[in-house]
């Protein structure tokens, strides 16, 4: 697995640092700032994937990286792996518009999957409402909240390159637990079906979406509330 170290034209090294989907505590920010000051860091840059790139002289890299672990931060994986997850701050505390806990789901996905090897870089985005600030339809695997603990899932998006692609719907109104299961399923199919260095959108175009059709049990509508309400509707109470 590759890691996020990149030699720059000016000779500095860029180190890509990941946190919990871009959310840090004041202690983490302050600790990173302190480590940056102590290691001649030239600049810190927030990235589109919600990581922080730190630019510093090569001889200081090891010391800076050693300071990350006590802060609960890590060097992000790079290359043909599942990349750090991009999630909006959508949860009850951080976003007034959120309808489901996107941040919690994003962090859970990142903890489970980041760094897993795949045929080509694999990007995941989670959004807590249909506005989709994290652009889940532009990710290899995107989840967009569609109700309380309900998500629509898209696969095969690609936001960058000269040929951006929108993901196709894989599932509607599934729970966070089902999203995790669907991700496992998609990663497994992708590893089995993709040619070397083939991005998921290209695999989908080549083999067809049917090859990624999940088994019915992964798509089964979570009917707990509806079933309970159906029983309530037939039973006593309420009404005239």
């Amino acid at each position, binding site marked *: 697995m590759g890691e996020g170290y990149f030699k720059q034209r000016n000779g500095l090294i860029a180190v890509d640092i990941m946190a919990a989907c871009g959310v840090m505590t004041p202690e983490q920010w302050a600790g990173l700032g302190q480590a940056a000051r102590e290691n001649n860091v030239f600049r810190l840059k927030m990235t589109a994937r919600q990581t922080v790139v730190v630019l510093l002289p090569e001889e200081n890299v090891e010391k800076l990286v050693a300071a990350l672990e006590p802060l609960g931060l890590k060097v992000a994986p790079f290359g043909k792996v599942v990349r750090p997850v991009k999630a909006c701050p959508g949860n009850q505390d951080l976003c007034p518009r959120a309808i489901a806990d996107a941040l919690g789901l994003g962090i859970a996905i990142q903890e489970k999957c980041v760094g897993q090897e795949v045929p080509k870089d694999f990007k995941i985005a989670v959004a807590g409402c249909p506005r989709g600030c994290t652009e889940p339809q532009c990710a290899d695997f995107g989840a967009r909240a569609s109700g309380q603990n309900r998500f629509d899932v898209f696969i095969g998006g690609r936001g960058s390159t000269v040929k951006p692609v929108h993901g196709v719907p894989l599932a509607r109104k599934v729970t966070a637990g089902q999203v995790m299961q669907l991700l496992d399923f998609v990663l497994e199919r992708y590893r089995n079906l993709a040619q070397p260095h083939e991005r998921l959108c290209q695999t989908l175009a080549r083999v067809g979406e049917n090859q990624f059709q999940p088994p019915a049990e992964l798509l089964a509508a979570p009917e707990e509330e*509806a079933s309970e309400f159906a029983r*309530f509707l037939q039973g006593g109470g309420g009404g005239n």
Partner: protein
Amino acid sequence: MAVKVEEINLAALETQLDRICQGCDLYNSAGCNPSQCLVGFARKVLSFAAQKKLLDIPGASRLLPAQDFKPYYPEQVAGAIAETCRQCRQCRDNHSPDCVVALVRTALESALLQETIDYPGSTFLYLARVKEQHPRLASLLARELQKADS
């Protein structure tokens, strides 16, 4: 979350629905069957939402009793539909057809309109859509909403 069920005045909706029931020929009779009645369905939605503290009841819109063919009149239901407009939190992109306010409104629309209306996010646009199907109801709704504003 964006809107909590506590922010919705369920009692105000319930009061309006109770008025409809009191004018119903089957009220307090053996023939009263809430699960087969649009207004009974709406009251069950409110009761369930209050008990469970749910704003959204996934799948409930599929349980709407489409076979309720009792006669309803616009004068009966306009007050309750207007109350759903007042309680609507204009969620726009976050709108869910299984939201309790949407469920009550849809049930009442089904009593009078040929087709239910996707709530367009503003009362003005909603009245315009109602007017396309039922000008009399739209006029009554406008009057009810003006009453509340004055």
